[in-house]
C-alpha cells in the first residue's frame, strides 16, 4: 500500500519525465520504422499520382493525441504523392470535425482544393450498411459533405463515384472496433487493399488481421505515428511525444524493479521476524 507522499512522488516523477522533453526538446532516439508501419507507407508510396485513397477518420477527441498525428502524417504523404483523398468518419459524430481540420490544414499547406483534391464526407450511423452502400454508390449515401456542400457535381466524386473498382487503398485510423467491419464489408467484397492505424490499446487485437494478410499494414499508437513522421521526413507532434513516452517507459521499468525489490524485502523481513519468534 502506497503512502500518500509516495503517490505524489510517483506522479511528480512521471510529470517531470513527460514535461522535460517538451520544454527542452531533445531526441531520445530515432523512431526506426517497423515492418507493419512500412506496409502502409510503401503502399501509398507506390501509388501513382491521380489515384484515389480513402482515409477513414474513425476516432474522436478522446483518442486525438495518438491518432491525429497519424492522420496528419498519412495526409501529408498522400498529398505529396498527388493522390486524391476521400475522408470519412463512421465511428461517431464527434470525429468529423477532426477530419475537416486535418484536411484543411494539410490540404491548405500543400495547395490542395476542397472538393477537387479531397473531401470529408462526414458521419453516418450503421457502419456495415454504409460501407456496403459506399462500395456501390457514394453520392446516394452522401448527398452533401461534412461542410454541407452538395456532392452532386463535386469533381472528386465525379472521378470516384463508388469505392469498388475506383479506390486504390483504404486506411482506417480507428479508436474503436471499426477495422473489423471495414475488412468484412469494405475491403474483402470491394477488392481494394487496406491498412489500419489504431490506438496502442487495440494494437494486439488487430495484429491477427495483419498476420492473416487481411490488412497489409498496421500502425499502433503514438510510436507508429512517430515512425511514419520519420518516414516522410517531417517530424511533428508524435516524434515530440515519443521522447516523453520513451523516458516515461524507462521510468516505469525502474518503478517496477524498485517495487518488486521493496515487495520481496518486505516478504523476507516478515519471514525473518517469524523465524525469530519461533
Amino acid at each position, binding site marked *: 500500500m502506497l503512502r*500518500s507522499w509516495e503517490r*505524489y512522488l510517483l*506522479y511528480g516523477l*512521471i*510529470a517531470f519525465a*513527460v*514535461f522535460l522533453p*517538451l*520544454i527542452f526538446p531533445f531526441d531520445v532516439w530515432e523512431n526506426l520504422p517497423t515492418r507493419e508501419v512500412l506496409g502502409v507507407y510503401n503502399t501509398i508510396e507506390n501509388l501513382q499520382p491521380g489515384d484515389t485513397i480513402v482515409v477513414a477518420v474513425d476516432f474522436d477527441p478522446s483518442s*486525438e*493525441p*495518438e491518432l491525429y498525428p497519424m492522420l496528419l502524417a498519412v495526409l501529408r504523404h498522400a498529398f505529396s504523392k498527388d493522390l486524391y483523398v476521400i475522408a470519412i468518419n463512421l465511428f*461517431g*459524430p*464527434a470525429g*468529423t470535425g477532426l477530419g475537416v481540420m486535418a484536411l484543411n490544414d494539410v490540404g491548405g499547406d500543400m495547395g490542395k482544393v476542397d472538393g477537387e483534391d479531397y473531401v470529408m464526407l462526414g*458521419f*453516418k*450511423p450503421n457502419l*456495415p*450498411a454504409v460501407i*456496403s452502400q459506399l462500395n456501390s454508390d457514394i453520392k446516394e449515401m452522401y*448527398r*452533401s459533405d*461534412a461542410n*454541407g*456542400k*452538395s456532392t*452532386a*457535381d463535386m469533381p472528386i466524386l465525379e472521378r470516384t463515384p463508388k469505392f469498388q473498382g475506383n479506390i486504390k487503398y483504404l486506411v482506417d485510423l480507428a479508436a474503436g472496433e471499426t477495422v*473489423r467491419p471495414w*475488412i*468484412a*464489408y469494405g475491403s*474483402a*467484397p470491394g477488392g481494394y487493399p487496406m491498412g489500419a492505424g489504431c*490506438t*496502442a*490499446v*487495440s*494494437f*494486439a*487485437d488487430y495484429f*491477427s488481421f495483419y*498476420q*492473416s*494478410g*487481411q490488412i497489409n499494414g498496421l500502425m*499502433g*499508437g*503514438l*510510436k507508429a505515428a512517430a515512425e511514419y513522421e520519420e518516414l516522410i521526413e517531417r517530424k511533428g*507532434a508524435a516524434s*515530440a*511525444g515519443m521522447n*516523453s*513516452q520513451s523516458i*516515461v*517507459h524507462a521510468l*516505469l521499468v525502474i518503478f517496477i524493479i524498485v517495487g518488486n525489490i521493496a515487495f520481496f524485502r518486505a516478504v523476507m523481513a516478515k519471514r525473518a521476524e517469524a523465524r525469530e519468534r519461533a
Partner: protein
Amino acid sequence: MATFIGTWIAAGLTLMILSFLYKDNPFFRFAEHLYVGIANAFVVWLVWATIVLPDFIGRVFINIAPDPDVTWSPDFWFLVPGILGLIMLTRMIPAIEWMSRWALAFVVGWGAGFMIGPVLNSYLLAQVYASFPWVNMQPYIGAPPGEYVPALVNAIILFICVVTVLIYFFFSYEHKGVIGGGAKIGIWVLMVAFGASFGSTVMARVSLFVGRARFLVQDAEPSGHAFSILLTLGILIVIIAAIVGRRQPPTKESESAE
C-alpha cells in the same frame, strides 16, 4: 481572440481535471460535469444536423439540399425507417412499449441476414486459414535461410498457441493428461497476450497524458510564456483544492479513488 480565449479555457479545464491527482475537489467536479454536459449536447446536435435532418426530414418532408438547382421530390420510402426509429421510443411509454419490438425485430433480422456471411468469412475462416504454418510460409518459399528459419519458427509458435488456447477453452473433457498439458500451455499463452495488451494500454494512457502536456506547453500560448503561467495556475488550483478539500468531509467516491 476567440481562439485565444477558447484555448485558455481548455488549458484551465485540463488543469482542473488533473487536480484529481491530489484528491476529489470542486474544481474537478465542475470540469467533469461541464465536459459530460457539453459532450452530450454536442453529439445530440450533430446527430440532428448530420443524420435526422438530411437523411429523414430532408428526404421526405422539405428540400434542404444545399444546391438549389438540384431537383427535389419526396422519397416516401424513408418513412419506413423513420417510423421504425420513432416507435423505438415507445419503450418510454409502458402502455405501448410492445410496439418497440417491431423495430427491434427488424434490426435483429436485418443484422443477422446481412452480417452472417461477411463475418464468417472475414472473422473466422480467414483467421483459421492464416493459423496454419504452411499458409504462413507461402511468402517465404525460396527465401534465404536468414528469413526462412525465423518465419518458420514464428509460424510453428503461432500454430501451437492457437491450438493450446483452444484446448484451454475446451471444457467437454477434464483437463488431464495431454489435454491438461495443452491447457496449461494455453494459460501461459493467454497470460503473455494479456501482458502485451496491458503494456500497450500503459503506452496508450501515457500518450494521452503526453497529448495534454504538449497542449499545455506548446499550444496554450504562442508567445512562449505559457508554461510558467500554467504552472502558477496549476499550483494555485491544487492549493485551493487542498484547502477546500480539507474543509469538506471525504465522500465515498473520493475514499474509493484513494
